């Protein structure tokens, strides 16, 4: 039995966070793909409270919620790289911006994908601008929010880049545009090209297909 298992669904950016963290730490794991639109017995047993992926199962003990999983991976496998920075203050900063992304920006991206415009566009532009400032401050001239290497905040935001690109295509509008947010634009390319990310990040075309299928399915079930 594999010591480390990860329950996930390939389009899910939260699952990707856990996978990138495991790749960075060079942890061998068994990836169990859940059926889209279904929940396995193992999932329901391992995450009875939320019944959601990702779930990391290490030596039979499950853990849920992507950011909690990423922190766990950092603390359980102490080999480099450290995903969270060394200083308590910097760690607080990473956690703050990760929470900002999950609580404010990610739901906004969903609203934009579902067709909301106007004020939502402005909020998105403001949010991206704040992330640019955070990047400049935290990276200190280096390639990632985490410095020389991908860290917790890179993983939090970077794993959503596929879905950010889907949103941009649907909007006909670039959110991460080099002219406006050069730091983030460069960072996005570096993140996607990183060896821990390449090969597991789903292609934008496939995410578009999934999204469009889901939209059709939703419209049908409303009739």
């Amino acid at each position: 039995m594999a010591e480390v298992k990860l329950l996930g669904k390939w389009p899910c950016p939260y699952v990707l966070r856990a996978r990138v963290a495991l790749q960075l730490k060079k942890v061998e794991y068994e990836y169990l793909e859940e059926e889209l639109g279904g929940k396995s017995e193992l999932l329901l047993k391992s995450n009875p409270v939320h019944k959601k992926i990702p779930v990391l199962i290490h030596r039979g003990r499950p853990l849920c919620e992507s950011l909690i999983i990423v922190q766990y991976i950092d603390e359980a496998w102490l080999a480099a790289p450290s995903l969270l920075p060394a200083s308590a203050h910097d760690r607080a900063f990473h956690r703050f911006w990760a929470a900002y992304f999950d609580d404010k920006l990610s739901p906004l991206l969903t609203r934009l994908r579902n067709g909301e415009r106007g004020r939502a566009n402005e909020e998105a532009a403001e949010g991206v601008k704040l992330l640019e400032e955070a990047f400049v401050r935290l990276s200190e001239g280096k390639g990632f929010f985490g410095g020389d290497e991908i860290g917790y905040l890179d993983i939090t935001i970077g794993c959503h880049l596929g879905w950010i690109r889907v949103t941009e295509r649907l909007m006909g509008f670039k959110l991460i545009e080099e002219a406006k947010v050069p730091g983030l634009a460069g960072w996005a390319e570096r993140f996607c090209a990183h060896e821990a990310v390449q090969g597991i990040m789903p292609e934008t075309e496939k995410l578009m297909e999934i999204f469009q299928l889901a939209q059709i399915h939703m419209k049908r079930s409303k009739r």
Partner: protein
Amino acid sequence: MAEAEQVKVLRFWASPWSFRVELALKLKGVPHEKVEEDLANKSPLLLASNPIHKKIPVLLHNGKAIPESLIILEYIDETWTDNPILPKAPHERGMARFWSRFIDDKCVGACWMSCWTEGETQQMFMEQARACLRILDDELGGRRFFGGESIGLVDISASFFALWLGVLQEVAGISLINGDEFPNLCRWIEGFVASDVVTECLPPRDKLLAVFQSKKQAILATKSMVY
């Protein structure tokens, strides 16, 4: 001893979120200054320290600002290492973080909305709230605290249920938390509020009751927590 540390908490006396921060500092024996905020007229210091959310609590440590109560709690635990509030082992740490997030993301909101809605909407929120409380009650089981023998991260996060929920349900005229349905939680509440450190930090119940009663109409209209 190191150069004198400056620790301030931008807080509001009635807020369960700033209570969390003050309790953690008290448990660790960290001297600190409480800076009371007028939430209707936020200070330049608060607006500068938390420009994104403009909310209390904010911890100021030697001039560095840390907002968001759960983030502050982790910062406090990492900076002052006596009397840890998070467990040592990674899986237990993950579970403590999980339950704290569960409290913040699901439980508190459902309890809050149960108080300020009516009819079918209220029934729906009350069912959600009860489901959350049941899960927490089961998780606690026969333990004295969520943290085991001593107050930990989850206990601190759950402090809303120890005082504020009782006050809110009285103001709203509903019953959510009760000894029949949630015996473990009610036992936990008794033990938690009886602890010396907690008693020193908790706001007076009668004052809390008075302020929520006076704000009842405003809260019914907006449903928003005024923190």
